[in-house]
C-alpha cells in the first residue's frame, strides 16, 4: 500500500489526512465474515476470581465464541517474550486466570455476529469475585504486610538498579549545607486521539494477520508467536496510520484476545476500544523522588543521594524504567559524589509502560524543584546557580557514550530572556510584593533537563526502489504516528538524490518490510533518517556505475544535480538509467542504521544527548488558587531541523503535553477503582489553556548524528514544564507543591488557607 500524496508543501501525509483518505485501523474495510469482539473488564483492582459462568452468554443467538480462563484448553496464557531482566518477572496472562490485579483487566470476551450482540452477551456472564485489599501507592506496597500483587514473587519489590560514583558519605561531610526533599509524579494516561486496543485479527491456516496500530510491530510479532506457538515468520503485523501513541500503541490484551477468538472461530475478529477501555490499558509510571543534596557554601553541588520508587502497576517485565530513571536522575549537572537507587514496585494500578520521554519528566520534576529550593535558600540567583553547576560541552557522562554535545548555559539564558527575564531574582513569596492579599501575583521559573538521545539498541533498515519513471519508493517498517517521520524520510531522500518530494512515495509498513525496532524514544529522525540516507547513497553508487557503463567516463566525473546525473554537458535522468538495465523493473538501494546496546543506565551508546530548557511566567491568585500560565518558552537542541515546521510542532506539542501533567492530569484511584478514567472527568489541557506567549527556540549547531547533523526532539521538551511552573509558583507565593499536578486546591492548602486533604 502506497500513499497517494500531493506533498508539494507541508506534510507528505497532510493531504490524505485532511481529506479523510488516510486510513486508521477503525477505517479499514472489514474482511468477509468478520465477527465483533467485546471484552468484560474487571471492576475491581484486586480480587480473586471464584467462579465464572458464561453458559448463558454462549447460548445467546449470534454469539460465535466465548473466552474465559475455562476455555483455554491447556494453552499457556502468559506473555513470556521480551522483558528487561534485572528482577523477578511479574508475567501477565492475556486473560485473567486466578485473580484480577487492576481495574480494567480482561476477565472474559465474546465474539458475536454484531457488536450489539457481543455487548449483550457480556451482561450474561456471571463472575463471582472475592475482593482483596488493593494497594496503589509504591511506598505502601513496600511496607510489611502490604497486599501482594503477585504472591508467587513473595514481594512487591521487583528489582533495584544502583548507580554511584565517588563516596556520598564523604561528600556529605565535605558539604556546607544539606537539603532533603521528596517529590511525586502521578500516573497519567497518554491520551492519543485514537483509542488504544483496536484491531482486525485473522488466522489464515497457520498464518496470522493482525492489523493494528502498533509502534513496535516486530516486538508484537514475537509476543504473538510465543503465545500461539508459531514461528515469528508466520505472524504478519501491519500498522496503518497511528492516531497518536506517545508510547501507548503497543500489542495489548485486546489484540491477543481477538487473535484467540479468530483462531477459535476461524473468522476475522474486530475490536474497537471505548475511551474508558483505552484509558485502562497503559499509563506513565507514578514515581517518588527522594533526594538528599549536599552543597558547598559557594553553591557548588557536591554530594547527592537519590532514591526512586517506580510504580510498575500490576505487571512488570523487569528493570527497564527504573534503570532509565536512574540514568540522569540528578540532572545535567556536575556532582562529585553520587548514589542513585531505583526500585521497581508492583501495585494494583493499570500496568505502566512506555510513555513520551520515559522516566524523565518524573526525575526532572524532582531535581529541578530541589535545585531551585537550594538556590533560593542560599540566596543565589536561579540562573547563576545552574550556570555554576551545569555539565559543559565535552563532559563525559558515562563511559562509552557520546560526551555532552550541547551548551546548557547559553540555552537557559536564551530561554529566560524569551519570557523577558534575566533569570535573576532574590524574591520568594508574597512578603516582598506590594500586592494586596487578594491580588494576583506574578512568578517566573526556569528548568533544564537532559536525557539520553534515545534508548537501547537500534536496528533500522530502509529499502528504496527507483523505477523507470524516476519515482522513488521507500520501504520500511515504521509507522507515521503523527510526529512527521514520513516528512523527514521524504526530505532526507529528496536532499540526498536531489529529486523533488513529488517523486517520492512512502510505503505503508508491516513486518514483511525491512526490519526496524519501531518508533519510540525520539529516535527515528536519526535512525530512519540515516537508513534512508545510506540507501540513497547505495542507489546513487549503482546509478553512477550504470552511467559509466552506458555513457563512459569515470565514477568520479559523474555528478548528481537536480535529479539527473551529469558528465560535462551530457546528462541522464535517473529513470533513464534504471531503464538502461531493466525496461520495466526497478533498481534497489538498501541502508541500515545500528546503535549498540550497552549495559549502562541508558541501555545504549547514546549517539547524542536530548537537551532542553524551559522558562515560565505565571500569575497566581492567592484567593482562589487559580494559576494561569502567561508565558512559556522552550529551547531544544535539534542539531538541524530537517523539516522546521514539523520540528517546531514536535517541541510545541511536547510542551503542551508537559502542561497537562503539570496542572491537570492524574489518574485517581479510590478503593477498588479509577475515579476518572474517562475523557470527561480526566482533564487534558485545551488549546485555550495555552499561554498567550508560547515560544519555541530551535538550537541548530549541526552537530547531531542524524542526516545533516540532526538530533531527535519529540521527547525531551516535555520535562522542563512542571518544574519551571513549580519554580515560578515558588517565586510568586513562596510555596512548594511537592505532588503533581499543581491544583488550586493544593495551592490554598500550602498557603494555610484551607485544611485537610486537597482533592486532586
Amino acid at each position, binding site marked *: 500500500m502506497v500513499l497517494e500524496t500531493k506533498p508539494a508543501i507541508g506534510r507528505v501525509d497532510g493531504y490524505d489526512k485532511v481529506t479523510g483518505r488516510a486510513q486508521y485501523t477503525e477505517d479499514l474495510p472489514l474482511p468477509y465474515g468478520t465477527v465483533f469482539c467485546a471484552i468484560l473488564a474487571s471492576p475491581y483492582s484486586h480480587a480473586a476470581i471464584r467462579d465464572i459462568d458464561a453458559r448463558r452468554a454462549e447460548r445467546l443467538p449470534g454469539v460465535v465464541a466465548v473466552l474465559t480462563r475455562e476455555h483455554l484448553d491447556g494453552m499457556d496464557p502468559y506473555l513470556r517474550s521480551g522483558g528487561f531482566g534485572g528482577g523477578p518477572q511479574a508475567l501477565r496472562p492475556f486473560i485473567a486466570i486466578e485473580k484480577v490485579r487492576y481495574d480494567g483487566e480482561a476477565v472474559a470476551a465474546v465474539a458475536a455476529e454484531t457488536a450489539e450482540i457481543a455487548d449483550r452477551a457480556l451482561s450474561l456472564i456471571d463472575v463471582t469475585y472475592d475482593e482483596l485489599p488493593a494497594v496503589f501507592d509504591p511506598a505502601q506496597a513496600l511496607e510489611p504486610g502490604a497486599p501482594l500483587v503477585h504472591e508467587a514473587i513473595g514481594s512487591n519489590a521487583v528489582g533495584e538498579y544502583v548507580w554511584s560514583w565517588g563516596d556520598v558519605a564523604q561528600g556529605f561531610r565535605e558539604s556546607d549545607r544539606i537539603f532533603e526533599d521528596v517529590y511525586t509524579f502521578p500516573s497519567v494516561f497518554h491520551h492519543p486521539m485514537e483509542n488504544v486496543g483496536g484491531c482486525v485479527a485473522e488466522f489464515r491456516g497457520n498464518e496470522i494477520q493482525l492489523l493494528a496500530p502498533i509502534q513496535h510491530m516486530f516486538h508484537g510479532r514475537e509476543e504473538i508467536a510465543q503465545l500461539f506457538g508459531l514461528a515469528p515468520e508466520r505472524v504478519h503485523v501491519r500498522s496503518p496510520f497511528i492516531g497518536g501513541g506517545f508510547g501507548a500503541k503497543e500489542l495489548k490484551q485486546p489484540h491477543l484476545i481477538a487473535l484467540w477468538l479468530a483462531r477459535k472461530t476461524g473468522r476475522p475478529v474486530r475490536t474497537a476500544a471505548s475511551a474508558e477501555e483505552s484509558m485502562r490499558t497503559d499509563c506513565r509510571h507514578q514515581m517518588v523522588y527522594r533526594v538528599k543534596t549536599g552543597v558547598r557554601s559557594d553553591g557548588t553541588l557536591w554530594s547527592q543521594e537519590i532514591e526512586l520508587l517506580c510504580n510498575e502497576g500490576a505487571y512488570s517485565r523487569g528493570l527497564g524504567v527504573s534503570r532509565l530513571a536512574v540514568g540522569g536522575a540528578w540532572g545535567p549537572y556536575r556532582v562529585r559524589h553520587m548514589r542513585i537507587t531505583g526500585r521497581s514496585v508492583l501495585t494494583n494500578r493499570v500496568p505502566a509502560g512506555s510513555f513520551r520521554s520515559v522516566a524523565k519528566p518524573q526525575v526532572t520534576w524532582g531535581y529541578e524543584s530541589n535545585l531551585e529550593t537550594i538556590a533560593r535558600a542560599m540566596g543565589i540567583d536561579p540562573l547563576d546557580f545552574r550556570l555554576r553547576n551545569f555539565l559543559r560541552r565535552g563532559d563525559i557522562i558515562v563511559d562509552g557514550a557520546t560526551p555532552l554535545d550541547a551548551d546548557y548555559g547559553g540555552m537557559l539564558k536564551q530561554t529566560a530572556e524569551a519570557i523577558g527575564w534575566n533569570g535573576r531574582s532574590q524574591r520568594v513569596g508574597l512578603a516582598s510584593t506590594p500586592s494586596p492579599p*487578594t491580588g494576583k501575583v506574578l512568578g517566573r521559573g526556569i528548568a533544564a533537563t537532559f536525557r539520553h538521545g534515545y534508548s537501547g539498541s537500534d536496528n533500522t533498515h530502509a529499502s528504496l526502489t527507483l523505477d523507470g519513471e524516476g519515482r522513488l519508493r521507500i520501504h520500511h517498517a515504521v509507522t507515521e504516528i503523527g510526529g512527521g517521520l514520513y516528512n523527514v524520510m521524504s526530505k532526507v531522500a529528496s536532499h540526498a538524490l536531489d529529486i523533488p518530494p513529488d517523486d517520492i512515495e512512502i510505503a505503508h509498513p508491516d513486518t514483511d518490510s525491512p526490519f526496524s525496532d519501531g518508533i519510540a524514544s525520539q529516535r527515528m529522525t536519526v535512525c530512519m533518517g540515516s537508513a534512508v540516507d545510506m540507501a540513497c547513497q547505495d542507489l546513487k553508487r549503482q546509478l553512477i556505475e550504470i552511467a559509466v557503463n552506458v555513457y563512459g567516463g569515470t565514477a568520479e566525473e559523474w555528478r548528481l544535480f537536480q535529479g539527473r546525473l551529469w558528465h560535462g554537458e551530457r546528462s541522464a535522468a535517473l529513470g533513464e538509467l534504471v531503464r538502461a538495465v531493466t525496461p520495466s523493473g526497478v533498481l534497489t538501494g538498501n541502508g541500515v542504521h545500528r546503535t549498540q546496546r550497552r549495559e549502562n543506565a541508558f541501555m545504549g551508546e547514546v549517539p547524542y544527548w536530548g537537551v532542553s530548557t524551559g522558562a515560565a511566567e505565571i500569575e497566581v491568585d492567592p*484567593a*482562589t488558587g487559580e494559576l494561569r500560565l502567561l508565558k512559556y518558552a522552550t529551547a531544544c537542541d535539534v542539531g538541524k531541523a530537517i523539516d522546521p515546521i514539523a520540528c517546531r510542532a514536535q517541541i510545541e506539542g511536547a510542551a503542551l503535553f508537559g502542561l497537562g501533567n503539570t496542572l491537570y492530569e492524574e489518574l485517581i484511584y479510590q478503593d477498588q477503582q479509577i*475515579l476518572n478514567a*474517562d475523557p470527561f472527568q480526566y*482533564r487534558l489541557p485545551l488549546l485555550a489553556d495555552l499561554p498567550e506567549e508560547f515560544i519555541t527556540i530551535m538550537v541548530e549547531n549541526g552537530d547531531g548524528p542524524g542526516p545533516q547533523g540532526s538530533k531527535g526532539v519529540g521527547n525531551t521538551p516535555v520535562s522542563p514544564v512542571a518544574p519551571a511552573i513549580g519554580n515560578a509558583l515558588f517565586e510568586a507565593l513562596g510555596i512548594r507543591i511537592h505532588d503533581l499536578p499543581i491544583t*488550586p486546591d493544593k495551592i490554598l492548602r500550602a498557603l494555610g488557607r484551607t485544611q*485537610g486533604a486537597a*482533592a486532586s
Partner: protein
Amino acid sequence: MKPPQFEYEAPSTIAETLELLDRFGDDAKVLAGGQSLMPLLNFRLARPAVVVDINRVRGLARLDIGPDGVRVGATVRQRDAERHLDVAAANPLLAEALPLIGHFQIRNRGTVCGSLAHADPAAELPAVAVALDAEMEVQRRHGKRTVPADAFFVDALTTSLAPNELLSATTFPIWRGGDGWAIEEFSRRSGDFAVAGAVAVIRLDGGVCAEARLVAFGLGGSPQRLTGSEAAIRGGRIDDGAIERAVVRAREEARADGDIHGSAAYRAYVVGSLAGRAVRRAAARARAGTAS
C-alpha cells in the same frame, strides 16, 4: 458511547407534549438543546424509555421583554438570549452570566430553561434565577403553576418539577435602576463547569446597603443563599471591612461537597473569595447607578 435505545416523540404543540409527559411520566425525558441530556444518555447515566423532543413545539422559542420581565421560552437558546439586543438592558446580570456557560458551540444549542430544569450544581443560571427571584412557569396536562426559583431547586440535578410537568418558560424580572450586580466563578480549565461561583445583587440607599442577595453555586447541591454573608453587609457601607466580614461568613456558611476537582474545604474557601469579589463589583455598579 452511544445512547441506549429509546422511543422518540416529536410533538408540535404544548398540548401534545403535556399529554406525552402525562402518559409516560417517569419513563420520559424532555429534549430541548440536548447539552445535558445527550451526555447523560451517551454515558448511560439516564435510560429513559421515551425522549420527548420539544424543539418543534410551536411557541416555545419566544423571548419576550415586557413590564413583567424577560420571559424566556423553553426552547430559547442560551446564545440567542446572550445576543439579544435588549436583554442586557432589561437584565444585565442574566447578560453577564450567559457567556460564562461552556463554549459558544454549547450555547448555540443549549437552552436557558434546559439548564434550569437540569439543575446542575455547577451551572450559572440556577444561581442567577435564585438571586433574582425568577419565576418558573410549570405546565402539566390539566394545569399550570408558577414556582419561585428558590422553591424550584431541590438538590443536585433535582427540581420540584413532577415527571409529568414541563418548564415552559422562566421570567427574570426587569432590572431596577440602581441595583448593582456581578457574577464571579472559577473553573480549572477554560470552558469547564465552575468549581465554585457566586452571584451578588446589591441595592444602595444613600451609600448604605439596603438590600443584598448573595447566592453561591458549584458547592454540590442547589444554589445556596448566603444569608449570613448578606447580613454582614446589609445596613452599612460596603467598605473593605464589610466585604471581608462577608467573605468570612460565606466560608463558614457554605455547605460544600468535595469531588475530584476540588475538596469541600477548598470550595467553601473559594466561594468566600468569589462572593467578596462579586460584592465589590456589584457595590461599585450600584454606586455608579445611584449616582447617575
